[in-house]
């Protein structure tokens, strides 16, 4: 056995460094999403945060969820946000002043949600998985969606159907008014 670089720097350290980097991405992106006044910067900060979360999923060993996170949140949702914003009034105009009551209410709400979630995470007892070699192929996932999580699946599709109908309604009303 020859000396390799992994004898000098333990792999777990590199993994932890990668995890820390992803946390920095997530938190930095989250702050960028809230603090700057330029709304395009906000959305790009949100993208960065989503990208960091992708890294966290990869660190936790769930490649499928990580790729879905990137594909859906960065590739689709942030993209449609930006698309909607580009069609809004130009930024050269005087931006509206920050409404203090709004900022305070938002801070209180998000603080309460944060505390509740921290409490929930802390109260959960994490146990090491005994059975890690389960079959997570697409077939299994599909069967689980169609049996055990059928209600959730149906409710989500109902939500999507409502969103589609809503957007069609909005589009047709705007057209009639013009």
């Amino acid at each position, binding site marked *: 056995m*020859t*000396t*390799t*670089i*992994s004898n000098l720097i333990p792999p777990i350290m590199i993994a932890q460094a990668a995890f820390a980097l992803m946390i920095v991405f997530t938190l930095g992106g989250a702050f960028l999403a809230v603090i700057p006044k*330029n709304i*395009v*910067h906000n959305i*790009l900060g949100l*993208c960065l945060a989503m990208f960091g979360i992708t890294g966290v999923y990869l660190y936790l060993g769930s*490649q*499928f969820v990580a*790729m*879905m996170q*990137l*594909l859906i949140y*960065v*590739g*689709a949702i*942030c*993209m*449609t946000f*930006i*698309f909607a914003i*580009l069609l809004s009034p130009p930024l050269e105009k005087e931006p509206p002043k920050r409404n203090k009551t709004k900022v305070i209410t938002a801070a209180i709400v998000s603080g309460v949600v944060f505390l509740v979630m921290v409490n929930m995470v802390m109260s959960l007892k994490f146990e090491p998985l005994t059975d890690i070699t389960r079959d997570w*192929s*697409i*077939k299994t996932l599909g069967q689980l969606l169609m049996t055990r999580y059928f209600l959730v699946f149906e409710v989500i599709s109902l939500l999507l159907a409502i969103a589609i109908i809503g957007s069609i309604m909005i589009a047709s009303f705007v057209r009639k008014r013009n």
Partner: protein
Amino acid sequence: MNMTQLPIIKDVYGFLGPDLMACVTGLLLILMFVPLNSAFLVWVERKVAGHIQLRPGPMEVGPHGILQSLIDAVKLMCKEMITPDLADKYLFWIAPCTVVIPAIVCFVVIPFSPIMQVRELNVGILLIFAFSSISGLSILMGGWASNNKYSLIGAVRAVAQSIAYEIPLLLSTMSVIIMSNSLKMSEIVAAQSPVWNFVWQPVAAIIFIICTTAETNRAPFDLVEAESELVSGFHTEYTGMRDALFFMAEYTAMFIGSSMAVVLFFGGWYGPFFSGIFWFVLKAYLLVFVTVWIRWTFPRLRFDQLMNFAWKVLIPISLLNLLVTAIVIKVL
């Protein structure tokens, strides 16, 4: 078994250990291949364009002008990088940097031959789709940060187009995935050893090629940089190496799209007599040639035609194709 078993690589990079060795050699190969491939494709494009228009194309530098793009690259690197006064400085700088990320990351999972694959992932296909979506984001960033009407219109068109064409792209890929029952690139290729998927899925293959042409903003779907309307679209304000990075991303995306088509429909590395990598690269470049050929043959679409074609023609056909595939697989 992968390429780290080769003795030369083992001698030079042995101190890194097997995993890191595969990672480092693979990344070095990718970083070498991406610029060289774009330089070659720029030359191919100019040559094909020339011959289609009955003129020779570049002829001066090297035999048949083969070194022309290297000279162009040197010229681009020497040029001043201009940032417009009213541009958003940070985003204007970040956009060309992020546009090359998918170009590099996607190569990690492409199986050039059974041993030439940097990293096998269970979700290889998804990785390529996920990272390709970042390039749309950087196009938007660049177009918006330039603070120029032409750039912004080009960027908005790019996004509308890529959202519309991503749906039939994914649907046609889905019909292959449910046939081979795997998201691993190498398993999808291995499932095609007797018969290529193109034979079973001709409709999906044609839809896939149309959609990759649209996703990479190539003619006849190049409204994003329609010269006669928008100067050159989202990269109007970019100069020097930054502009070259956008071009590099476009040509690399073309190659990645073609290799995806080879993996999904044209049997990957399978072929008689020669080794796998020869067949894979040959097939990929043939598909790239077809894309270039299409660009210099067909006129540009109008924007409403483009959107109607995606939503009213491609999506219903690919949905129907997926449905029929699923039913046939269930019945057989």
